[in-house]
């Protein structure tokens, strides 16, 4: 079992910030206890009961929980074992990533009706820039209420919406709009909270510093030593002191947030620029053959995501980190795009074969970048059929000799693309583990690696990013 699994999708450069940020109207839509709410939607007998979604194994963590469970102090990212102690009578379910992703797509479809400027952050959160929609659709606050009722009516799910002139303020506002759970029980939230231009600081300054993005326990401890407890205190700290305390870039960023400044634009349709998958192993590995199988497994997963994004990649990158934390990356760029696991694996393995693993491999990763729309079959580099031209191999089956170049049959690339498409359709109907490379066949079936497979298992990434933010859309 890998000690940690992570996935990344790098996205394209940001569009330039809008010149006049004061006029922006940003919405942050955040689903209320999303995974738990979906479970209740699909099984209404769970309604009103404490419900915990997450890793149910010994080392699992809570991905989401109903407000009824929060009353007992359960919260996300908490070890499931602890949640069981706090709330032994809760219902514990393992979570169904595919179902959440499906509903997430429906939610995005609703949001898209109000503005094309929708930036999904995770399955259950999105930013909208409705600055330009106000004239056509109505004031931002009205849009917020319309979104809430549309999602409630069409999908029977609740959300909270924050409205503000900047992204981080909108997120804080949606937090303030949420239902609350305390010893006294569940209190309904306000649903929509609006921070109007000019009200930013009044809203922001009473908050504790931990509510700001980028203030974790370490930063908070340093700031407390300066006597900084609230965002208001932070705004009063001179820039140079702040930069000296938490570092230059971070300090400048925090200083701006404390003054309500956040120019980051809403980035719709972030284009996937690279896809990668890596794993850290609990023990350093030296088993070449096993690691080569791992490469195939990761290549298969990466290829699936590349295809789901409707792209092909030209650069395959191998990442190897050794026990002493030295890290090598090796990459190779193909003239033609690839999007099937075998092709990506064979490149990754070729790169891997040139690396000495006797030091012990701590982490292995496969990535694909230089993503592009697949040449609409419109630009496929033909290759010389060197295999046919190779000297006959003992026991080889390539006895045929045709015309030079061999262009009569569909090209190998076209045949591989067709096979990958078939794999995708089979997996869509019968599940990810229904079909996979024979090399990955073990006693327990096919060990495919797939987004959303028990992402809250041992040492998995925090629930907020479970399964990769863009994987479902």
């Amino acid at each position, binding site marked *: 079992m890998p000690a940690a699994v992570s996935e990344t999708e790098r996205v394209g450069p940001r569009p330039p910030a809008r010149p006049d940020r004061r006029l922006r109207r940003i919405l942050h839509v955040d689903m209320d206890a999303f995974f738990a709410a979906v479970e209740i939607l699909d099984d209404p007998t769970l309604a009103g009961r404490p419900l915990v979604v997450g890793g149910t194994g010994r080392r699992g963590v809570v991905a989401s929980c109903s407000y009824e469970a929060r009353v007992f102090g359960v919260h996300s990212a908490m070890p499931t074992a602890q949640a069981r102690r706090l709330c032994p009578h809760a219902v514990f379910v393992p979570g169904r990533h595919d179902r959440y992703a499906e509903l997430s797509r429906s939610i995005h479809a609703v949001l898209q009706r109000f503005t094309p400027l929708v930036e999904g952050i995770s399955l259950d959160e999105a930013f909208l820039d409705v600055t330009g929609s106000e004239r056509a659709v109505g004031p931002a606050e009205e849009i917020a209420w319309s979104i809430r009722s549309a999602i409630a009516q069409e999908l029977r799910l609740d959300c909270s919406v924050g409205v503000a002139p900047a992204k981080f303020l909108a997120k804080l506002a949606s937090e303030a709009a949420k239902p609350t759970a305390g010893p006294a029980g569940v209190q309904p939230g306000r649903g929509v909270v609006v921070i109007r231009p000019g009200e930013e600081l009044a809203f922001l300054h009473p908050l504790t510093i931990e509510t700001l993005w980028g203030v974790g326990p370490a930063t908070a401890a340093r700031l407390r030593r300066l006597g900084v407890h609230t965002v208001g205190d932070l705004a009063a700290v001179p820039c140079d002191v702040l930069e000296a305390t938490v570092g230059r870039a971070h300090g400048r960023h925090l200083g701006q947030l404390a003054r309500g400044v956040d120019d980051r634009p809403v980035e719709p349709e972030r284009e996937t620029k690279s896809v990668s998958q890596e794993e850290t192993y609990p023990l350093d590995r030296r088993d070449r053959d096993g690691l080569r199988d791992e490469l195939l497994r990761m290549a298969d997963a990466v290829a699936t995501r590349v295809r789901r994004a409707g792209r092909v990649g*030209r650069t395959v990158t191998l990442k190897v980190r050794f026990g002493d934390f*030295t890290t*090598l990356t090796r990459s*190779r*760029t193909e*003239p*033609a*795009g690839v999007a099937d696991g075998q092709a990506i694996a*064979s*490149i990754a393995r*070729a*790169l891997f074969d*040139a690396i000495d693993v006797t030091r012990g491999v701590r982490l292995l990763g496969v990535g694909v970048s230089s993503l*592009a729309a697949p*040449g*609409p*079959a*419109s*630009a*496929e*580099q*033909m*290759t*010389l*059929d*060197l295999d*046919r*031209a*190779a*000297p006959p191999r003992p026991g080889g089956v390539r006895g045929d*000799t045709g*015309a*030079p*170049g061999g*262009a009569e049959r569909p*090209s190998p690339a076209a045949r591989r693309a067709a096979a990958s498409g078939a794999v995708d359709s089979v997996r869509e109907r019968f599940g990810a583990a229904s079909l996979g490379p024979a090399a990955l066949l073990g006693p327990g079936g096919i060990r495919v690696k797939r987004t959303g497979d028990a992402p809250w298992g041992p040492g998995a990434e925090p629930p907020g990013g479970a399964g990769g933010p863009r994987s479902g859309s």
Partner: protein
Amino acid sequence: MKFRCERDVFLEALSAAGRAVASRSGALPVLGGVRLALSGDTLKATGTDLDVTITVEAAVSGGADGVSVAPARLLTDIVRAVEPGAVVLEAEADELRIASGRSHFTVRTHPSGDFPRLPVPSGDTLSLPAAELFEALRQVTRAASSEDSRPILTGVLMAAEAGGLRLVATDSYRLAVRDLPGVGVLAAGQSVLVPSRALSELTRLPASADVVLRLGAHDATFEAGPVSLTTRLIEGEFPNYRQLIPSGYPNRLIVGREPLLDAVRRVKLLARDATTPVRIAMRPTGIDLTVVTTDWGTATEDVDAKYEGAEMTVAFNPAYLIDGVEAIASDEITLDTLDALKPATLRPTEGDDLLYLLMPVRVS
């Protein structure tokens, strides 16, 4: 070790030897060093990455014989930076001192025993005309693969052919075949597969009249004047490239080399990524070159040409096409095609010592 020499003489030796010094991170530290060995008044500077080794001999004014392995890049930077004139080098224990005018440097050296022992091929010496060989290599190495994943394709096949020497390289998208008639250095049927990287380095060395080749079982050495380059040979069987070359073509285009090259370079501006092809529409009176990139726009240019055959459009990777046309040293070139998907051939209109086979790009 102690010697004195002209800065420029030493710098030239360091630069040439430095071309073989391992640049890749993760290599043995000692491979980032240049080995300096003094014997009498002869200095030998050697760099290696274990695949390619370059040794340069330079005449210096020797003081005390000895060996030192100094960080190649640092030493080269120092020698390049000091004032022109005499440089004095003195190695002692684990240091190398460099003095020139008022400048004094001391650099830490690698233990000279760590420097790998280098193979010295013992085969017979064969002599090749340097200028002709270098030109031929420049034409062919461009078609070799730079991807280590198919080691065979990173090599240039040097084979005996009809009493002469034939050079062949392919990366599976194109294939270059160059004949050096009359250069009968290999025995009939003999062939070796030499890494194209080593041959590219060879062509960058200062030209000399002749190149002396020594073939060993696993290595080959090329000696050009004061420089010798040793490379391991690639093991394995080169693809049977002869089967890939069509025996005849129904369509023949004859076009001026410079006008074609200029036109392809211009329309290539619109090829915004490496996979965008240039389409060549061939008509009896000339050709139209077109590059279309959906999000950027279109470039077209027509070029006068003579064409015999069925009117058709064939598309190529513009970089591969340019590589092929550049390799041909004649005013006019011949482009033979079968159809839009089969291998096309570029060759000089006069002479048949070079053939550049190019696979098209399939376009819708």
